[in-house]
Each structure stands twice: as C-alpha cells, then as structure tokens.
C-alpha cells in the first residue's frame, strides 16, 4: 500500500523518468534495427562472415551489463562523453544486436528454397527475390527478434542510472542505497510495465506489417 502512496506522491518524477527510459531505449533500438537487420540480411550470403558476426554478437551478449559500461566509459571519455546518456545508449545498442541479427539471419535463410526457386523461375532478379519474397516472409521472425531486444533493453536500461543517464533505474539504485523498498518496487514495477507495453505496441505494429497470409 505504501508503494502505491509513493507512486501517487511522486507521479511527475516517475513519468519523466519513464519518458527518459523510453527515450534511451528507443534511440538505441532504432539505431540497432537500422544496422542489425541489414547486417543480418547481408551475412546470409557470406557463410564465414556470418559465423564471425554471430560469434561476436554472442560474446557481447555475455558481457555483464555493468562491465560493458565499465569499458564504454573510458572509451567514450576520449570524446568527452564518458558519463551521461551516450555510453548507456551505446551499451543498449550493442545488446540489441544479437537477437536482431540472429533472427534476421535465420529467418532469411529458412525461407523455403522451393519458394525462392519459384521466384527466380518466373523471372525475379536476386534483389527482387530479396525484397519481394525473402524479407516479407522473414518479417514475423525478424519482429520476434526486435521484440526480444526491446524487452531485454528495457530491463538492462535500468543501469543507465548508474552513469547519470537517468531513467527508471534511478528509483531502483537510490532505493537500494537508502534501503527504501517502496522506491525499488516502484522502479521495478514501471520497468516491467514499460516492457509489457512496448512489446504490446510492437505486436500491434507486427500485425499491421506482416501479411495476413502468414498468420
């Protein structure tokens, strides 16, 4: 009950922290989609490169988030951005790579070869086969990867608070520091809520973008 009280009393702060959280994740994610999807598509044609890229992306996923920030802060300090939103966004961007690249790569590769042969056989160029056949058919799985990355990023985004980038993590870390459990609950609750909402919105978007014939 007292958590509820806390939320009511601090609603404006919570809202602005939520907005900030969303902003960090959104920037990182848009950038990640713009790089990871083309990369995922590109490597379907280069087996060796695919192995390397997927391996590196896998390794990045295994680095603990705090440690990743630990690397990024000194690296970005060189351009005077060691503290604040940039390292947080870069970290989130890196984490989003694996689910999106992997899903894109797998989805494009697993399009039924008979369908591709049909497309080639009736006179599509390789580029037309990619954009008119493979990409639309891969879309549901690509979307699954993006949704995966979003949920992951909204959780990991909490650590942005550690380097002064704000977001809902602020409540969690301050709560821990002050052993103020209502604050921790509030932070955790809104992080989860945000993740669910974002996933739902992407689900709606997916319904709109993916052909009805694939449902």
């Amino acid at each position, binding site marked *: 009950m007292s958590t509820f009280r806390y939320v009511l009393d601090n609603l404006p702060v919570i809202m602005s922290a939520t907005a900030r959280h969303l902003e960090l994740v959104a920037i990182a994610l848009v950038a990640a989609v713009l790089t990871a999807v083309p990369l995922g598509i590109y490597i379907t044609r280069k087996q060796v490169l695919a192995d390397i890229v997927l391996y590196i992306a896998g390794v990045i996923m295994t680095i603990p988030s705090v440690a990743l920030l630990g690397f990024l802060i000194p690296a970005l300090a060189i351009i005077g951005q060691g503290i604040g939103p940039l390292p947080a966004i870069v970290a989130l961007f890196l984490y989003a790579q694996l689910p999106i690249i992997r899903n894109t790569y797998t989805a494009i590769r697993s399009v039924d070869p*008979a369908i591709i*042969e*049909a*497309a*080639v*056989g*009736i*006179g599509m160029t390789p580029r037309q086969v990619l954009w008119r056949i493979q990409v639309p058919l891969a879309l549901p799985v690509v979307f699954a990867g993006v949704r995966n990355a979003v949920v992951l990023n909204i959780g990991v985004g909490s650590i942005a608070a550690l380097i002064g980038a704000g977001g809902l993590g602020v409540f969690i870390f301050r709560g821990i520091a002050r052993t103020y459990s209502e604050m921790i609950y509030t932070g955790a609750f809104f992080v989860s809520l945000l993740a669910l909402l974002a996933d739902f919105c992407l689900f709606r978007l997916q319904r709109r973008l993916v*052909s009805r*014939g694939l449902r």
Partner: protein
Amino acid sequence: MIRLEHVSKAYEGGVNAVNDVSFEVPRGEIAILVGPSGCGKTTTLKMINRLHEPASGKIFVDDVDTSTVDPIELRRNIGYVIQDVGLFPHMTIAENIAVVPHLKKWDRKRIAERVDELLTMMGMPPAEYRNRYPRELSGGQRQRIGVARAMASDPPILLMDEPFGALDPITRERLQNEFLKIQEKLKKTIVFVTHDIDEAIKLGDKVAIMRKGRLIQYDAPSAVLNEPADEFVADFVGQDRTLKSLRLIRTYEVMDADPPALHIQASAAEALSLLSSSSGQKYAWVVGDARELKGLIARKDVLEADASGDAKIADIVNTNVVSVERDTTVKDALSEMLSYGLARVPVVGPEGRLEGVLTFDSIRKVLARIDS
C-alpha cells in the same frame, strides 16, 4: 518452338540426372515428359528456363540459343508452373497472379483486368477469390492459381511441372479437360511433366518417356501405345493398352449421330408413331427448339400415359438424364456410363445441343478396331 540438342546435366555427387537428351516441341504443341520418379523430368524442365545450366548440349527457344540471352528476360517470357505449386504465401491470389505482369511494369488497370480474366478462366469468381491468401484455398484451387500465374503475361511458352499432381482423380480429370479446352484456344508451346502415363497420353501431342536421365521414346501418344520402343516403355505404358487408347478418342468420333429425337411439344401420338413396335425403337431423346437436350422418353412411359388420356410429351419426359460433352474422351464417357449403370448416354455439343448417342456397342466396335 523449343529444341533440346544432346543436353546433359550431372549434379554434384555424380548422378547423371539428364543424359544426352534431344527433342523438339513445335510451336503450339504439348510435349509431355513422363517417367518414374527421379528420372530427370524436373531437371530437364529447369534447364529450359535456365534454373539449371546444362553441362553440355544446347537448348533453343524459337531458334535462339538460350545460353546467349539474359536469363531474367528469358524467364519472364516463359510461364513456369512449379512442382508443388510454389505460390507466395504472403501475397493474395491477385498479387500472386500479377507477379510477372508487375515485373513487366504493366499498368494497374491492365493488371487488374488480366487477373480477373484469368480467375474467371480458372472457374474461380474474381470477387470471391481475388483477395484471399493461398492458405485459404484448397489444393486444387492452388494448383489452378499456379497455372494462372504462369499464364498471366500471356507467354508463348509454358513449362508445367506436375501441375495436376496431388489431386483427387475427379478434380484432376476436370482440370485436365479445362486445360485442353484452354489450350485449344491459346495454342501455347508447352512442356508438361507428369509421372502419370494416363495423363501423358490424354494431354500430349507428343510423349517423351524418360528413364534414368535418358530419353527412351519421343512419339505421338498412339505410337507410344502401339509401338513401344522397348520393354521398359511397354511396361510403363502398362498391360491395359487397349483401354488406354480410349483416352485418345473423343466421343464425337464414335457416337451414333442422328439419334431418335422428339420435340418437347410433340404429342403422345407422334411419340407412339416414332416408337411403334414395328420400328423397334424403345426410346427417344426429347429436345427443344434449338435441338437442346431436354430429356429422355421411353415407349412404355408413353403407352402408360396414353392409356390415361391425351398426354403431352412435356408432361411425361424424364428430364433426369446424364449426358457427356462431345469432346469428352471415350474413356471418361465409359466410366460415366459404368458408374451410372447406363447402356447409352446422349452426346451434347455447344449449348447442350443433342449431337448423338454413345452406346456400349459403339465402344465395342472401337475396341475391336484398336485391337486388330
């Protein structure tokens, strides 16, 4: 015109999938590639549109060596029906049919008209099917769309890989008949793959029998039936060759023309004079003004009715008669007769006009002729 000259193809791993195959399909004719599974039919077909490149030999389309033309351009002018259909699941039926016209940059209106025209031709009302997705169709409907897609840009050449495979016999029979009717009008040059010898004999102008990558015999269907090149072909064609020959004959070729007929407005008295015991005639077909078939009337029906007063033919005619169309194969007509237990069926032409009657007797005469 399509011509293969000493074409061979080996896949990695060494099998000679196609081995020194040569044949020519004249413009407007159907050549059927037939043979057991794995004999190289699909491979042969795919070399024609350069999905596979032959290891050796040459392929000509309208006297142009295909290896000298841009494969994309070549394929856009050759309709291709893929084994197991290969419709694009994310596209609607209309979009699937429109793929090639779209690639050829036809304008919207022309594409829409063409799609509707083809759907109508396939017996699928455009308003009902246009916006459906492939998964919302039955197997037979999907196969028809596969054919429609191949024909969309009206290419002079069609390659069809088992377009009627995996269908129940009745649907298959119907699609085959529709196919023949369409071909009669459009006169495409077609290479058609099947592993069903009956289908090959029914549809082909020429039949190419393949075995283990080699072309064993390339001949007209009747020649394949009557003069099989070797043991293998004889076996493949099967023991019931005489029966199979019935597929090559259309009912109008063997029917008795000019069957006994009565106008529907005729009186019972006129009927009785036609069906008098002295004429030996026991039944008559009843027709309308344009000789369109209305039904059947038997002598005993007229006699019974006449006893009870001045009956009209229109009142006592049996309208529940099974008829066959004039270009049905005798084989199909025969199975129709057997399944309804009929000794004779009327043969109708355009607008249901009575043209003749097919009887067991006329079929027996044909069989005797084939066997001799």
